[in-house]
């Protein structure tokens, strides 16, 4: 194998063997020539059958497993960056099924926009895989209480609720047909993606383009990644934002959208998990501290548009990323003072579930 390839695909994984197998099947059928890319699976301490599955796998492309110790998703990606031979590093998650044209589209984007472009793709998801441990066999999750009726559905209509490698390889149109826009079945994620695309279409060199980069499906020139030390291993969430922010600030990079699409092999996700909400919050504060840029906290006011929070007054809500971009560049002291007031005196630092006050009188 040549030391120099066009693309390295870096996939960090921990105990996601069944979905990873589907992702690798998706990479097997890429329209991009198999000898022009490699796939690096970074084993982030897998204890399931991942290692065995990778050992037995025959792929058309070069497939390497590195790592093996649990180091965390971001440090695992950094190991992948170090090991990459490709000019362009494409990041996928172990549950991000690539469309057959994904690598070709990223390479095209790289050629069009050059080495300073941070490329981001489109995300869809397959909602019916939610309760499945293994979408290929219909095996259900065991760590949550799957309703019996759902078990029945999966047993009696496997074709509607599972996904086989064969379908991925031979009938990707079925995947496209079943795909729903957004990374999760949440209107906020669909809206977020639409806004990111709108921002970058209208302001291709936006200073806030970092808000569009998510390494579930994205690509950056390997040399650019190495020059900044890769991902921040300490940040608990939104690591793509932090990396893209740093690259924009320090290297003058810019974010560009492509139509390279992935299909999130959706799995059960506890949206009400306290830890998830906490991680989002801690990630923003981590970015603020690392970059001494309190304006990053404006994200809370944009979040309030995606996931309404009754104690963020409507006047403070940032309706879309275009407005975010405008305000970020030219934030008045008066408005910033009011944002700070809300941040300091919000009844909770975490996003709340919307509650509406009921009125019955106005005579």
């Amino acid at each position, binding site marked *: 194998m040549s030391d120099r390839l066009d693309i390295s695909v870096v996939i960090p994984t921990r105990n996601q063997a069944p979905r990873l197998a589907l992702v690798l099947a998706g990479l097997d059928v890429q329209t991009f020539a198999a000898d022009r890319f490699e796939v690096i699976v970074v084993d982030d301490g897998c204890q399931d059958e991942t290692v065995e599955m990778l050992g037995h796998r025959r792929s058309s492309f070069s497939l390497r497993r590195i790592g093996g110790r649990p180091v965390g998703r971001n440090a695992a990606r950094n190991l992948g960056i170090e090991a990459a031979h490709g000019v362009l590093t494409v990041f996928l998650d172990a549950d991000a099924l690539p469309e057959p044209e994904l690598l070709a589209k990223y390479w095209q984007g790289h050629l069009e926009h050059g080495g300073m472009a941070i490329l981001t793709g489109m995300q869809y998801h397959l909602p019916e895989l939610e309760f499945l441990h293994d979408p290929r066999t219909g095996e259900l999750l065991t760590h949550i209480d799957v309703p019996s009726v759902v078990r029945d*559905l999966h047993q009696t209509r496997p074709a509607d609720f599972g996904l086989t490698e064969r379908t991925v390889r031979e009938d990707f149109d079925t995947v496209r047909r079943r795909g729903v826009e957004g990374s999760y079945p949440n209107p906020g994620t669909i809206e977020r993606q639409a806004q990111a695309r709108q921002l970058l279409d209208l302001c291709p060199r936006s200073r806030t383009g970092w808000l569009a980069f998510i390494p579930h499906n994205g690509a950056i020139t390997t040399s650019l990644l190495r020059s900044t030390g890769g991902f921040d291993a300490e940040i608990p969430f939104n690591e793509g934002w932090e990396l893209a922010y740093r690259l924009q600030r320090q290297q003058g990079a810019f974010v560009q959208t492509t139509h390279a699409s992935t299909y999130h092999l959706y799995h059960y996700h506890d949206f009400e998990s306290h830890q998830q909400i906490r991680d989002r919050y801690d990630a923003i504060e981590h970015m603020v501290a690392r970059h001494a840029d309190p304006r990053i906290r404006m994200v809370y006011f944009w979040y309030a548009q995606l996931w*309404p929070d009754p104690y963020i007054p*409507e006047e403070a809500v940032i309706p879309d990323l275009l407005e975010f971009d405008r305000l970020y560049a030219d934030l008045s002291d008066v408005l910033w003072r009011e944002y700070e007031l809300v941040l300091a005196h919000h*009844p909770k630092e975490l996003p709340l579930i919307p509650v509406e006050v009921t009125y019955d009188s106005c*005579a």
Partner: protein
Amino acid sequence: MATRDIARALADGLRTKAASLRLDRNSLPVLIFFHGQALAHTIRPLVLARALRNRGYPVVLAGRGPHVVRVRQEGFEVHDVETLPQSRMDQYVERGDYGYYDVDWIDRCVAAERTIIQMVRPSLIVHDMKPTAHISARLEGVDDARITQAYNHPAYAHPLRLPAGFDPSAGPFDAYLETHAPRTRPQKSFFFLADVPQLHDVERPAPGYHFIGPLLDQPARPSHVDVLDNWSDEGPLVYLTCGSSGRDPDYLAELVEAVRDRPYRLLVTTANRWTPRPDRQLPTNVRVVPFLSGEWILQHASMLVGIVGVGAIYQALSQGKPIVGAPEHLDQEFHLNRVRDLGLGIKLDRADFCTDSILQAIDHVLLHESEFHERCAPFAAGLAPYAAGVAAVDLVDQHFLHRDDKYRFNAAFGISGEEFVRYLEATTPTQLSGAVIQKMLLRNLRRGLPHRWVGDSLVFDRVDSWNWLYENEPIFFEADYRALELKRHAFHRMDREKVVSRNRWQRYRLRYRLTLDPLGPGGKPAFKAGQRLKVFLPIPVDRPGHQRGVNILQTTPSALTEQVAHGLGFIYGAIVTIEDPSLPLTIGYDAEVNVRAIGDEQAVRRDELSGRERTHRLQVDESILHLPEVLKFRAELDRAPDDSDEATARAIYRALATTRRFGKTHDRTQSPKYCTSLVLRSERGHCTTLARTFATLCRAEGIPTREVHGALIGYPLDEKTYLHASRNEPLFGHTWVEIFLSEKGWVPVEFHGIVIGQQAMTGRNVRDRRLRRQIEANTEPYLDYYFGHLDHQRILCSPSVKRMHTLLLEHPEERETMRGPWRSAPELRYDNSLRVDCL
């Protein structure tokens, strides 16, 4: 309140009871549709039918299936009616497909049901597991009551997480109703929840849903059942039921063999769905019979085992016995989840309902029998007082007694007599003093003013007692309208029968005060010393062309000034500490603001509407557009195909404003769907419900809309001063709408000034003929004015006033929890006042 008045009111209560006794039930036939394919959905209607018959209602039933015979045996008239075959249902469910009703089947069932309804001419239709019966009732215009479970309640507390897009029921029925919407007729629906809240609680009970308890068959205790005869009673008795429907009990053959050496006895009822092999002798500790009274056998058994539905579960719980069960249908999943979560038994998967796991579960329950019984015993005690049949018939009585009432007493909106007087005193013109109001209330107790006696205390309904006064009491209505007239005179003049604002801009000084009572309900202290409040006080906002020059002059306490956020429209999150909990606490501010009258200007300012905002302002929940009442309203709307947006919006406005009167409603939500359905199905609305209905209907026509919020300036104290006061209600929630017209930009539309006019006159609430003529004369000019114009009588605020609580009370012990320490405090009592001086 004087003893004489109490006695009078008590007599009034007795009259209501007497009216119930005089109800001519014989002329009110009840038709019950039941699903005779399943025992549970036969027994429940049968229990209700018995109770109705005992109370004197003629009862006719309609069903099909093997269990119909049980109903006939009790002497009921039963019509055969088209029914979805159980086999079809089972086949579908087995493959996880809940779409067993298609349009053809709905059509067949509805046609058959309508024929029977036309024949029987019932006053009420009750149905159980006959989802088409509600459609038939709507098409025939007959009230209906559905026997259902609490998990069908919109605010059920323990919903299942199902795969996205998985909809087990609604689709085809909604679609069918949508197609037939223009032919539906007015009727009322309510729900019997055959559950107890101890097992299946709901977060906020919705109107029309009533917990009645499980409708269990309680046959007379058999004097002798030989199934237990000559059976050594060594070892506990395990009762296994196959149920009357569902998949074949293929697990039984192996199970009965495996039990042979177990230290307990197994009694199986098969409903004739399984027979032991004739060539095999059953183990001596196993007996098999086709049927038994579940209640009776559960008195003797240690537990219930089976693919069990809600009937069997409640039978077991009523005897304080634990359950080992597996769900086959979605409803069973709900019930068994609660059984498991409350520690009342063990839930198995249907796929695992086989010998090993059943035996393991039985062993586990027997090993921990005392713990299970300890948890089940309170359920038996809790279920004992429920007599579901009687409770349901009481509700039927209430339905017939009050079905034509415009006013209903709703306990959830109850307010003590004393509080109601304070509330009315705060929210009416000053000439209606406390003494006048008290007299007015007492006088009207006998005339139909909704009220209840709770012991010696008089309780009113904050909504419908108010509505009654507004629609029946001239002192109340006339005072309100005269105050409105005074205010109009100050701000408007008539020019060739057109309303015109007297001046374009008006500057006000505002004095807003919120005073918290030191005592809460029951006279208990509302706070502790040192307890903290977080305060979110709405303040006026600047808005180009509408309101400007907002200036906060001072705040109370002064520290609030630090947290004035003009851009947000709030004094945001200020902390106020309770120093002396025995004293009232007052917070507030003084401010000045300029408000402009809108719509009179010659040159119209054109606003821009971006593509994204247009999309946002046109968003409408699709399901609202499929409501039959919405389809009907839109079909009947007086408009031409080539009407402009303005003409269409005006037609919607007039159709609502000329048919609805102002009234308060028992709201538990104010979602656009709720508002639209409520307003279109009733004669009353208030600012929010009307505004949201109008906005929704405009959006349906492709006209962008947005809501605007603020405070009305209140009743006049003199020519230059107004006072808006409220008690335990926020002041800043008044709502109106703006529509976007491409020729004019954002245009205001306000219902408040119209629905309190001619529409609100009932023939009883205006005695003064001059006033009546004046109201009539005002109607058309103001109807015209409030579409496109707005006067100075509103102080514009942030739209967030509808979402944020004004006060949050700190609970320090909750600091480390996910919710944090700050909680809304609906128990707090307070007076709000906004004094407005014209400058």
